[in-house]
């Protein structure tokens, strides 16, 4: 058995601490809700700390794959347990840690079936973490499905608006995606003639002919693109966001959609660079349409969570546009946008969660005047709205800047379309902010409490992260560059 471990297996430690948390939760009696929550918070905190450690311990001057953990699993089929970190997945691992931890804190006031909820939540996150760190095609597929099933249950059991419909729709969409991914993966593995699922081995130039790459790329792009909310396969996402409980919405919009984009990057683009070059025009078109479409369709929504859902469609369009530009800046912007958008939507849903828990409504028309009653809770939402509009000083601005510049350079018309969407995204968000938080005091809600320090903590963390990377984007970009520059330079 071939083993290769570079020092302490931090990546596996993340998975193991999730697993340990899951098991511990299962052994705690269901009545001890507080204990369950503490265990969840501690173990999710551990994974966050590990992710932060990895983020800073990664040697940027050396670049490449680090913290490699390789273990033959089924040598006959060429399946390995192969985890590694590079500049593309570290931001996403960090993002997962942040959203995971703050999601647990957001659900602190939960009362119903707490044990099952957190157990499934941990299972979901294991899948997400695993997918981001693995370098083996087989495991990508496995982790994808591991994260899918808990998502269905979490929405169908704890959801709110049209939850069964949403859960079923989401699951069907994502399974359709995986039905596209699986044949493409098998096609690639079989045609490589290498009898391995190892991405590093498969991505060597010359492994696949251009026509093979074109065929496999479009399948992989559509398959993962469904998960990334690529227009016109986006309609599962607003519905799913709305129905899901807050923490699940956070993971769902914050991380799960990134899995799609990350899959496009890690599988489709890594393995089929020539297919990428061939289909880039189409990707850019779909992305640009998605950007402006999401914003405009969102203008008419009347539910706070729908609004955020549509803004996600638009923002994921920016990721797609960045990925389609075939430039270093585009890739950098796309990966930074994945991170920034994840944190931003987590903040959105976390704030909406607080508002919903207090007012018991998400209908924009019924809200209004909240800013006077709960100024702190409102300002968290407003910060997220600002990030969504691409206001400088928050992380999203830099991502959008990079993507839009490189998109405008490569595809002027589509880039212009995306830039024009900035006006509407401002209109869109400001309208929501105005209708929800401004206006005269609402008598109905006059007795509500503002968010306390403890409950506000997850939002505080998220705001701090947005501001940190907004003021100091190099912290993240230097990391992404270690992966994007060699990749673009290595293109045929």
């Amino acid at each position, binding site marked *: 058995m071939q083993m290769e471990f570079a020092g302490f297996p931090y990546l596996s430690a993340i998975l193991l601490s999730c697993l340990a948390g899951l098991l511990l939760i299962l052994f705690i009696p269901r009545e001890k809700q507080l204990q369950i929550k503490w265990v969840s918070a501690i173990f999710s905190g551990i994974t966050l700390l590990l992710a932060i450690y990895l983020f800073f311990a990664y040697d940027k001057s050396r670049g490449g794959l680090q913290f490699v953990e390789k273990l033959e699993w089924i040598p006959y089929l060429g399946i390995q347990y192969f985890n590694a970190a590079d500049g593309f997945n570290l931001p996403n691992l960090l993002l997962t840690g942040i959203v995971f931890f703050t999601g647990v804190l957001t659900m602190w006031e939960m009362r119903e079936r707490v044990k099952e909820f957190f157990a499934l939540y941990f299972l979901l996150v294991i899948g997400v973490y695993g997918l981001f760190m693995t370098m083996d095609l087989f495991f990508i597929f496995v982790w994808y499905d591991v994260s899918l099933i808990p998502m269905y249950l979490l929405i169908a059991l704890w959801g709110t608006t049209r939850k069964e419909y949403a859960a079923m*729709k989401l699951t*069907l*969409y994502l399974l359709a995606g995986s039905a596209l991914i699986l044949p493409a993966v098998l096609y690639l593995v079989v045609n490589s003639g290498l009898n391995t699922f190892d991405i590093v081995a498969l991505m060597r130039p010359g492994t696949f002919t251009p026509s093979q790459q074109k065929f496999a790329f479009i399948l992989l792009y559509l398959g993962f693109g469904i998960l990334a909310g690529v227009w*016109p396969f986006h*309609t599962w996402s607003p519905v799913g966001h709305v129905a899901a409980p807050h923490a699940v919405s956070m993971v769902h919009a914050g991380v799960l959609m990134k899995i799609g984009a990350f899959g496009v990057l890690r599988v489709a683009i890594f393995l089929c660079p020539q297919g990428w070059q061939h289909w880039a025009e189409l990707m850019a078109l779909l992305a640009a349409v998605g950007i402006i*479409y999401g914003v*405009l*369709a969102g*203008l*008419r*929504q009347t539910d706070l969570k729908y609004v955020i859902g549509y803004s996600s469609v638009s923002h994921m369009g920016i990721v797609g546009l960045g990925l389609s530009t075939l*430039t*270093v*800046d585009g890739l*950098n*912007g796309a990966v930074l946008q994945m991170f920034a958008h994840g944190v931003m939507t987590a903040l959105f849903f976390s704030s909406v969660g607080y508002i919903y828990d207090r007012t018991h409504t998400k209908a924009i028309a019924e809200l209004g*005047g909240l*800013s*006077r009653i709960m100024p702190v809770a409102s300002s968290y939402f407003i910060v997220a709205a*600002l990030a969504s509009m691409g*206001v*400088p*000083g928050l992380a999203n*601005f*830099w991502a959008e800047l*990079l993507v*839009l*510049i*490189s998109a*405008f*350079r490569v595809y002027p018309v589509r880039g*212009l379309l995306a*830039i*024009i969407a*900035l*006006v*509407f995204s*401002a*209109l869109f968000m*400001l*309208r929501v902010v*105005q209708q929800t*938080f*401004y*206006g*005269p*005091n609402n008598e109905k809600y006059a007795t509500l409490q503002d968010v306390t320090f403890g409950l506000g903590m997850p939002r505080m963390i998220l705001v701090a992260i947005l501001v940190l990377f907004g003021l100091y*984007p*190099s912290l993240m*970009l230097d990391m992404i*560059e270690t992966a*994007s*520059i060699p990749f673009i330079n290595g293109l045929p």
Partner: protein
Amino acid sequence: MAVLWSKDVTLLAAVAATLAPFASFVLIMVFTRSHPRLSAGLSLSAAGISLICALALLAGHWDMPEPIQYSGNWLASGDIHIPFGYLLDPVSLLMLAVVAVIGFLILVYSLGYMAGDPGFARYYALMSLFLWAMMCLALSPTMFQLYVFWELVGLSSYFLIGFWYEKFSASQAGKKAFIMTRAGDVAMFVGVILVLLNLGNLNILDMDNPSIAGRIPQNLLTLSALLIFGGIIGKSAQFPLLTWLPDAMQGPTPVSALLHSSTMVAAGVYLFERLFPFFSLSPHAMAAGLAIGTISMLLASTMAMVSRDIKEIWAYSTISQLGFMLMGLDAGSFFSGAFHLTTHAAFKALLFLCAGVFIHKFATNDIFELGEKGSRNLRVPMVCTVIAAGALAGLPPLSGFFSKELILAGLAGLANPLWLAAALLGVFLTAYYAFRPIFIVLFPHHSTSSQKASSASPDSGHEDAHDQAAYRLMAIPLLILAGMTLLLGFFQYPLQDFLKYQYAYLGIPADRHYGWLPYVASFLAFGGVGVAWVEFGRPGAARVGFVERIPILFRLFSERWYLDHLYRYLLERVVDKGLSHIFAQNDNKVIDGSIDGLGHGTVESGRIIAFLHTGMIQYRLLAIFVVMVLLSLYFFF
């Protein structure tokens, strides 16, 4: 850069000037939101530090032949490098000083004006943010940084205009301001990217270098100049994006004062000054700018002639004065624009602050009501208003006269006399609309006013000392600004001297003097004042303007030339009921419909197939046997 920090006094001063307001913003937002006095103290001391540093920088670099530039790396990605730094040259130092001075005075004034407001701490935090953004914008060495702070200026004015967010109109106005300027910003963003893609970087010094003409094709240069000018149109509220500015008066009056004088709208003109050589390389862009400045100037003047709201009148006057500045700059006369920007900052801040005192006292914006309630009894603000309005109208010894005269001189140098004629018409209209409210307030029609005032004055004696203290606090900045308005005009030559190295390489010819021009301009200005006097001021005047006698014009002017109606129509019909509706319907009906249809189709086809399925276990058995028999027949025989 880091090494120099402690040694280089200039850099230290620049950093301190720009960092202090930001620090106070963060401190107030995070720690002292619930302590209004402490917050105000923090904000004021930060503004004080900025003021001292800005003035020190101005004094220390009075004679500066070469711009000083500092930059450190902020972000590098692929071939996009975004440095962060400071560019100190006469224009930016002048702007910094203007922002610092006006900002500090307005913050002092706000102590009185905003006293007792529930959002006092938030107000000071946002004002600090506003000042910070504007100062960093002024000192930006690259268009990237400038764009960043440009957006932040827009953002902080959004919050400040919508400061009293319980009022629907306020939050609406804030939103409108942000969106309309965003529309301009998008154009500017595209223009900036165009420059970046062709030039490779966005250093303002590089963009201002005449050699850029050789590095960018001429039509691209024109296109990007026009697009960047789009940003200026949005920010400086020029035609066609001018209607947000009059609505922006929904914010607290000191905010309007800051917004109209030295920050938000001035940013647009400042950007033009900043990129003056860049723009002047493109004659088409200059011509377009000249036309837009002229149109805005005249349009806004007509609107100001019929408004009854004192703040709205001053807001329109801002648009028209900004139009004047752009006309001067576009005519190729750099100094006239810069000078008018400076003098305008002082007198416009003064006008708004005075209006603020009236509004604070009488709780109305209507000029007729203000007159009847006895605004004339408030001596200090009334006198100051008259001085500032005089400057606005361009009456001789006041600052506005000098700067406006320079602009006219610049326009007179153009081949086409149309521009000068338009500008002279503008001078007349400006004088008219500036003095119309003054006469209405000063000489109220109803003689009851004096009784009211006399009955009001003993009342005010009973009022607590707090109000009196607030009034005095507000009066100090007024007096300082009035002094500046009176004197600034005489500093024309020192200022010209100070700015002489700016763009010296362009070889801008010194403005020619036209001996007759000041006389014509003053004659027209006094004419405007005179018409206003005849219609509103003289005893027994009808108090109906000549425009109001023509109903069509009156309606056109007071409805802002129906621009707002047009925008509302576009927004509702095209965006809301058009695109957005179609897209949302498409999502619901077409995409979801087909997906749901797929689901239903599956269920239905299952139901159809279920008919084969009689539910009778024995038929199934029989079917099994028959099939097996047939299969065995097939395989064995």
